[in-house]
């Protein structure tokens, strides 16, 4: 979970745009998060096969692992 704002300590993972086990290209929207300030799409930092670690709809602390891309 990134830190989209200095005051943000946690955010909700709203939804994954890429299914578990599917491929994503670098820069494509990977998931959407919601803080008390904003909703924000987060792009895939690299291309590869996505493995979900976190569950959509739950809140995670900044720094939590949400998914891996291999």
């Amino acid at each position, binding site marked *: 979970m990134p830190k989209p*704002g200095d*005051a943000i300590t*946690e955010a909700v993972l709203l939804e994954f745009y890429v299914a578990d086990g599917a491929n994503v290209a670098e820069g494509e929207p990977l998931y959407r998060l919601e803080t*008390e*300030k904003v909703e924000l799409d987060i792009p895939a930092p690299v291309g590869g096969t996505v493995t979900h670690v976190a569950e959509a709809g739950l809140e995670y602390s900044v720094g939590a692992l949400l998914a891996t891309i291999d």
Partner: protein
Amino acid sequence: MAAAELMIDLYRRMRRVRSAEARVLRGLAAGEFAFSHWPVEGQEAISAGAMAALGPDDRIITTYRGLGDVVARGIPLGPYFAELLGRSGGLSKGKAGAMGVSDPERGLMWATGIVGAGAPIANGFALASQIRGDGRVTLASFGDGATSIGFVHEAMNMAAAWSLPIVFLCQNNHWAEHTPVDAYAKNTRLSDRAVALGMAGETIDGKDPLVVHDAIAAAAARARSGGGPAFVEAVAYRLQGHYFGDGMAYVDPEELAAARAADPFDAFRRRLVDDAIAGRDILDALDAEVQAEVDEAIEFALASPGPSTDELYVDVYESRRDDGSRAVPAREVTALPEGPVEELGLVGAINRTLDRAMARDESIVLLGEDIADPAGGLFKVTDGLSTKYGTARVRATPIAESAIVGAAIGAAMAGLRPVAELMFMDFVGVCLDQIANHAAKIRYMSGGRQHAPMVIRTAVGVSSGPQHSQAVEPWLMNVPGLKVVWPSTSADAVGLLNACLEDPDPCVFIESMALFFGGGRSAVPMADFTIPLGRADVKRPGSDATVVTYGPTVMGAMAVAEELAAEGIQIEVVDLRSLVPLDLDTVLESVAKTRRLVVAHESPQFCGPGAEIAAAVGRELFGELAAPIARVGGAHTPIARAAELEYAARPNPARIAAALRAVCA
């Protein structure tokens, strides 16, 4: 007013200014009395023309070189002179002197000794008029020297952006104290600055009162009808020094002699006679009448005694506090209301409180950068409020903190209840003059005739580096007239903000970014409630040692208390909640019981609030203490961006725990 009648009126105003100043200068020269005086000789036509152009309900903000504006406005000379002399019969009971003359009942709202600082405050009066639609115009009068300072630029930009009903009157007397216009400005046509900021600007002959009258009347009429502000540069020449005693060695003698030969007062008097507006006999009679008024006023002032020293602490706050900051002794229990609760971070709690307060109190207006929707504030504190209450009451401002606080001050003086937001507390430094020299001193400098009840909300950042993470509450605690409040929980924030919104004095309300969202999420009663200022809260009872703290450090202290309880050490956590007023009674009660004290706060320990508290406890409980008082304050360093250094600089739980173990050892 018929033309001839207006000319006589202008003459009378100029005559009163000239005669009043002549009497002052004579008394100063003779040693009859002594005070600082900043002459206006040569500028009488500007004050007379401007004041004659305004209506009785219009408002004026002037400066320390204000004799012309004050007298031309028709302020009673006796109380005015008594104020200059620092006497009890003065307009402000002798507390302000020449630099701070005001007479709100006659529309002279404020004068300032800080160059240019009146302009942002004047905007606040104009803002109040605009919101209420009361048809009043505010005139901000200042000298040419003030056009160099940021206050005036900020104020003019805000006034233009918001089309405020205000007239900026620049009295260009050729001298910024001892420095001529062409030595401090490249573009000496000062009215060009108005054009740059998008408002009407003109340069006029300030030696002709009729020209000034017509220009100000036109500007005021336009401003009154929604046409926006104007900047009028009236050019004259100061015929005396910067102050009484200034030998004017810096002035070319020929230039000065020429200016004196063209004395606007003499010229206007000749004109009345030459144009058959008034005969010499009529003017002589008027002169004598004015002279008698001046002489009588000086007698009144000289006969007025100095104020009793009982006045010392009067008008600092609405309630007298003889030892500066301690809470009034009344002590009631301030339990939170029973009933259902909701989980809110600090942002949610403050948003809810502002929302409910704005719904019940139409005088509340919000001012700050980005606070209107859709932005709703950098941290969403004001999210939805402009949509609900309109952008007249929820104003996104220019990035100009002095203009923001100044507008809040003027609006408060005009009867609104402004809440100004300073995005980060570090920005207090940007506008400290408006806070410390103005907001805090309105009540005192007006002798209790005016006050500026307002709330300044500001955030202490975390992880935001050296210029966005500082706690500077000791700066503000050291300013008599301010109240300083710092909640540690969302529920306390609701109750304390409600108290600030009803308080008769200016309050600085500090918000911890660490508590904004999830970090501060905690139970807040659904019902609305108020927590009186000056009531500390025992957040956790204990018998072995007391931690006195406030703000986000309370959370750390609570965690430490929990940790030490497991070791059998019972810590009492006292949350001060407000720093001014300071509830020393609760502190003393706690330490009398535990006999051990640790004071913790984010601001630097050196000269911090902990020193004040330690001194008070040391004095009151000398001989009772079982251990030396310990302080855990911020390091005397900037707050670094690096997390490791920030943690080390803050009064972190490890440091608090170590201090507590030491005093309990």
